[in-house]
C-alpha cells in the first residue's frame, strides 16, 4: 500500500485505499441507479396511488373486513414497480444470476425457444382452467359481499360468508398468477448477459486496483476465474432442494473455492482477483442504500421492542458469554458469531466481520454454523408453534426474531400460514435494518477498545483521535452514509412513491448486483482458505456452543417480548394483523 501522507497531493489517499474505492464504486453505482429509476417513474404513478389510498380508506370505513375493492386497490398499488420501466428492465437483465433448476442443469443458464414454447403449451390448459376458476370465485365473492353489504355489514354470518368467499377468490387468483407465469415462459440465455457483466465488473474493480498501485492487467486476467466460481455457486444454489434447505450461493461459493484451493491449490496467477474484502466492502456500501430507517415503525411499537430491544441485548450478552464464560480466544470470531446469531444471519456476519476486521476463516465458520442451524430451525420452529397452538401473529414474531436469514423466515412463516408469514417477514425486515448501526457500533468499539496500541496510551487527545480515525474502517462510513441518504430520500418522497421507486426500483436493481459482489467475495474466501486452518478456529467446538447458547437465550427472550407486546400490551395491533 502507498503512503497515505504522500506530499504530492493532500487527497491522493482517497484513491489509494480499498475502503475508499469501495465507497467510490458504491457511490457511482448508486448515483446511476437513482438516475435510472427516479427519472423513469411508472405511468400515472401518483394517480394510481391516490385512487388506491382513497378506495382503501373508504372500504375500511365501510366494512369490517377487507372487501374486494380494498384488495384490488392494494394490488393496484403494490403492482406499481419502478423495475417495470423498459430502460430499467433492459439494464437489470445484465445482472441476472443463473436461475432455478430441478432435473435439467442447463435450465439454470439457458432455455431454448422450443423448450419455452413446450413449457408454455404444457401449462396453457392449467392457466385457462385457473382463469375460469378465478372468475367463478370472484363472482361468488361479489355475491357474498353484496349480501353482507345489504345487511349493512351487521350480520355476522353474512360477513363470515363474504370473508370466506373473498379468501377463496384470493387463493384462486394466486394460483392463476402462478399458472400464468408458467404459461408465459420466455426463452433465456444467461451466458449473453453474464459475459458482458463479467467484463464490466472486471474493469470496474480493475480501475480501483490500478490506482491502489497493483497490477490491473494481472487482476483482469485472473478475474474471470473467480467470476466462474461465483456463477457456479449460483448454479448449485439454484437447485430446487438447495433452495428449500436454505443452502444459497454463499455456501456453494465457499465450498467450490475450497475444493480448488485444497486439491490442486489455487494457481498464483488467480490470486490478484481473489479480493474478498474489496468485493465485500463494495457490496456493503450498496447494501447500505437498502437499509432504510423509515421501515423501523412498519409494524408499530411491538416490532421495535421485539427487534431493536431484544436483539442488542442478545448480541451483547452472547459476546460477553463468549469472552468471559467460554473464553473464546478470538474476540473477532466471538463477535461475528454473536452478530450472526442475534441480528440476521449472513448479512450481519458479513457486516460485523468487515467492521471488526475478522479473519476470513472466522466469517466462514460463522456463516457455516448459521446456515446449518437455520436449515433445521426453519422447519422445526413452525411445526413446534403449530403443535403449541400459538397465535399466528405471536408465532410469526417469534420466528422473525430468531430464525437467521430472511428467506428462511419467509419459508418458516409460509409453513405456519399467511398471517404468520407476513408478520415474521416484517419483523425480520426491521431487524435487517439494524445491521448498519450494528456495523458502525462494532467498528467504533474495535477502534476505541479492542485494537488499542498500549504503547500509545499516553497520547494527547488530538493524537489519540487520529489514531482512532486511522484504525476505523472507512468503508463503514460509506455503508452508513448510503443508508442515511436513502433514508432521507425515502422520507422526502413519501412512503408510497418510495415503495415504487426505491423498494421496487433501486433496491431491487441493486440487489441483483450485490449478489454478484458477495458471490465473488465468498468465492475468494474459498479460493484462499486452507481447510486445516479452518479447523483451528473450531477448537473444542466452542463456536457451536456459543451459537447454541446464544440462540437459546434469543429464543426465550424473543418469545417473552413478543408475547408481552403482541398479546398483552398491543392486542389491537395483533387483531388488525389477523385480518
Amino acid at each position, binding site marked *: 500500500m502507498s503512503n497515505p501522507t504522500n506530499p504530492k497531493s493532500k487527497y491522493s489517499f482517497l484513491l489509494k485505499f480499498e475502503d475508499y474505492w469501495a465507497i467510490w464504486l458504491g457511490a457511482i453505482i448508486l448515483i446511476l441507479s437513482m438516475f435510472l429509476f427516479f427519472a423513469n417513474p411508472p405511468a400515472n404513478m401518483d394517480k394510481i396511488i391516490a385512487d388506491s389510498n382513497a378506495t*382503501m*380508506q373508504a*372500504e*375500511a370505513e*365501510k*366494512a*369490517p*373486513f*377487507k372487501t374486494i375493492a380494498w384488495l384490488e386497490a392494494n394490488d393496484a*398499488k*403494490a403492482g406499481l414497480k419502478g423495475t417495470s420501466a423498459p430502460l430499467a428492465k433492459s439494464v437489470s437483465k445484465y445482472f441476472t444470476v443463473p436461475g432455478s433448476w430441478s432435473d435439467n442443469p442447463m435450465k439454470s443458464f439457458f432455455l431454448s425457444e422450443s423448450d419455452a414454447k413446450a413449457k408454455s403449451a404444457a401449462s396453457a390448459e392449467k392457466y385457462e382452467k385457473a382463469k375460469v376458476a378465478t372468475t367463478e370465485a370472484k363472482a361468488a365473492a361479489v355475491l357474498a359481499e353484496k349480501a353482507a353489504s345489504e345487511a349493512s355489514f351487521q350480520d355476522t354470518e353474512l360477513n363470515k360468508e363474504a370473508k370466506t368467499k373473498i379468501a377463496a377468490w384470493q387463493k384462486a387468483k394466486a394460483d392463476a398468477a402462478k399458472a400464468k407465469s408458467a404459461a408465459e415462459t420466455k426463452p433465456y440465455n444467461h451466458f449473453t448477459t453474464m459475459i458482458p457483466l463479467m467484463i464490466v465488473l472486471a474493469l470496474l474493480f480493475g480501475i480501483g486496483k490500478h490506482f491502489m498501485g497493483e497490477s490491473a*492487467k494481472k487482476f483482469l*486476467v485472473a478475474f474471470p476465474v473467480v467470476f466462474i466460481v461465483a456463477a457456479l455457486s449460483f448454479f*448449485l444454489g439454484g437447485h430446487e*432442494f*438447495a*433452495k*428449500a*434447505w436454505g*443452502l*444459497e450461493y*454463499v455456501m456453494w461459493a465457499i*465450498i467450490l473455492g475450497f*475444493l480448488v484451493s485444497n486439491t*490442486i*491449490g489455487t*494457481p498464483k*496467477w488467480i490470486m490478484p482477483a481473489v479480493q474478498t474484502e474489496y468485493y465485500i466492502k463494495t457490496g456493503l456500501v450498496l447494501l447500505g442504500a437498502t437499509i432504510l430507517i423509515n421501515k423501523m415503525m*412498519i*409494524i*408499530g411499537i411491538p416490532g421495535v421492542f421485539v427487534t431493536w430491544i431484544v436483539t442488542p441485548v442478545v448480541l451483547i450478552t452472547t459476546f460477553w458469554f463468549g469472552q468471559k464464560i467460554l473464553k473464546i480466544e478470538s474476540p473477532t470470531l466471538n463477535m461475528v458469531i454473536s452478530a450472526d446469531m442475534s441480528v440476521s*444471519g*449472513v*448479512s450481519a456476519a458479513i457486516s460485523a466481520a468487515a467492521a471488526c476486521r475478522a479473519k476470513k476463516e472466522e466469517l466462514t465458520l460463522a456463516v457455516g454454523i448459521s*446456515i446449518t442451524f437455520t436449515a433445521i430451525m426453519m*422447519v422445526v420452529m*413452525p411445526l413446534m408453534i403449530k403443535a403449541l397452538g400459538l397465535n399466528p401473529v405471536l408465532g410469526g414474531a417469534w420466528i422473525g426474531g430468531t430464525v*437467521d*436469514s*430472511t*428467506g428462511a423466515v*419467509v*419459508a418458516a412463516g*409460509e*409453513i405456519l400460514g399467511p398471517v404468520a408469514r*407476513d*408478520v415474521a*417477514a*416484517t419483523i*425480520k425486515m426491521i431487524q*435487517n435494518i439494524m445491521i448498519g448501526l450494528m456495523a458502525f457500533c462494532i467498528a467504533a468499539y474495535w477502534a476505541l477498545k479492542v485494537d488499542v496500541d498500549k504503547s500509545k496510551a499516553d497520547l494527547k487527545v488530538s493524537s489519540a483521535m487520529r489514531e482512532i480515525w486511522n484504525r476505523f474502517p472507512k468503508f463503514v462510513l460509506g455503508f452508513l452514509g448510503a443508508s442515511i441518504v436513502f433514508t432521507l430520500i425515502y422520507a422526502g418522497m413519501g412512503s408510497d412513491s418510495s415503495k415504487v421507486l426505491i*423498494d421496487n426500483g433501486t433496491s*431491487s436493481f*441493486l*440487489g441483483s448486483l*450485490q449478489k454478484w459482489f458477495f458471490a465473488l467475495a465468498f468465492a475468494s474466501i474459498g479460493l484462499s482458505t486452507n481447510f486445516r486452518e479452518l479447523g483451528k478456529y473450531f477448537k473444542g467446538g466452542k463456536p457451536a456452543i456459543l451459537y447454541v447458547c446464544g440462540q437459546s437465550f434469543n429464543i426465550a427472550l424473543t418469545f417473552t417480548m413478543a408475547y408481552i407486546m403482541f398479546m398483552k400490551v398491543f392486542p389491537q*395491533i395483533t387483531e*388488525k*394483523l389477523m*385480518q
Partner: protein
Amino acid sequence: MYVLREFLTIPRNRFKPSKSLSLALSLVLLYLFVTMGLPFLSKAAGFSEEHQLIIDEKIEAGAWFYIFVEQIRDIEPRVTHSLQYSPGMEEEGQ
C-alpha cells in the same frame, strides 16, 4: 498471451494428476450431493412436505437479506395497508 505465458511458467510438478483427479471427483460428488443427496436428506429428515411447500411457493429460503426475497415485495405493502386502512375503522371510532 499473458495467461498462456503464466501457464507455461508454472512448474511441471504443479500439475499432479492425482490432485486434478481429486478435484474432478469432488466436483462430481458435489453435484450428486445437490441433485440426489439433498432430496434424499429431505425425505430422511421428514421435511418433505415442508420443503415441497417452499419449492411450490418459490421461496429462496437461503436469501439472507430482505431485498433478496421476492415475497417481501408483496408482504410489506400488505402489512402496511392492513395497519393503515384497517377494516372496521368506523366501528372502532378511528
